[in-house]
């Protein structure tokens, strides 16, 4: 993990690559406390509501992937207590896709003895299409 003195703008975060399958989408959907049919676990409902021929992965899976690279970069002691992730979803993620999540430090600011670090975050599929973009932040004391 990166220490405060090492973090510089442009520095890359660890990359993760995730294979998305129907099984992983359904397993993610089963994590809730309220089991309901939705566009993630029911292709027919996705077709009715979105016009797609497939169910789409929850955007929260991409949030989790982005949180993973943030945690690996800052360390859990920092990220799990000060971190944020903010993603905008651009394209659907579905069974068979491979999503690669990357990030780079966009800026640092010293505030009251703490280092506030901002990161640009990107999710891309196997075709190079961006499926989500956003920012993450963490505070190093």
């Amino acid at each position, binding site marked *: 993990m990166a220490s405060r003195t090492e973090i510089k703008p442009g520095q890359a975060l660890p990359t*993760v690559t*995730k*294979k998305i399958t129907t099984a*992983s989408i359904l*397993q*993610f959907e*089963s*994590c*809730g*406390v*309220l089991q*309901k049919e*939705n*566009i993630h676990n029911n292709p027919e*409902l996705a077709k*009715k*509501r*979105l*016009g*797609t021929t497939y169910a789409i992965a*929850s*955007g*929260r*899976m991409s*949030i*989790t*992937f982005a*949180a*993973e690279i943030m*945690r690996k970069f800052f360390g*859990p002691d920092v*990220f*799990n*207590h*000060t*971190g*944020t*992730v*903010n*993603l*905008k*979803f651009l*394209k*659907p993620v579905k069974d068979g896709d491979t999503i690669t999540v990357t990030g780079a430090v966009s800026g640092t600011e010293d505030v009251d003895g703490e280092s506030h670090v901002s990161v640009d975050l990107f999710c891309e599929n196997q075709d190079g299409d961006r499926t989500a973009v*956003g920012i993450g932040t963490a505070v190093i004391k």
Partner: protein
Amino acid sequence: MADSPLKLFVYDDVVIGEELGSYEYILTQEMVDNFRASVEDPDASFPTLGVKHDATAFAMVYDDQIGTVNAGNQVEFFNPPIVGKKINVTGRISDKYLRRDKPYIVLEATAVDEDGRMLEKLSTYQLKKPDELGKKWHPEQK
């Protein structure tokens, strides 16, 4: 709130700041294991993301016949949840707006455990006209 009859969701009737109430659940090891397996991250610290706190709060109040597409999420992490602890979630509709003539609502949920530890604050930007997004993704299906 889970015992109350669901209200039919009507976009025009939604009021910014509307409270969605609260609910509780106990985080189990099975939930953690299931979540970590689904995202292929054995150290994933916030299985609460899989519970979809804000969307669950909404679904416990509203019968949504329109459906939704998640346009974005914003999450603040404060403390990882602990297995066996009761988690209390409070939800509300924090915003509502039109963008390019498309209706959006913003759901917000705050999660605190039984010891009063703040866990996470989650917001979701929901497009309440999902067919429009489907057309954008697949213009050939218009």
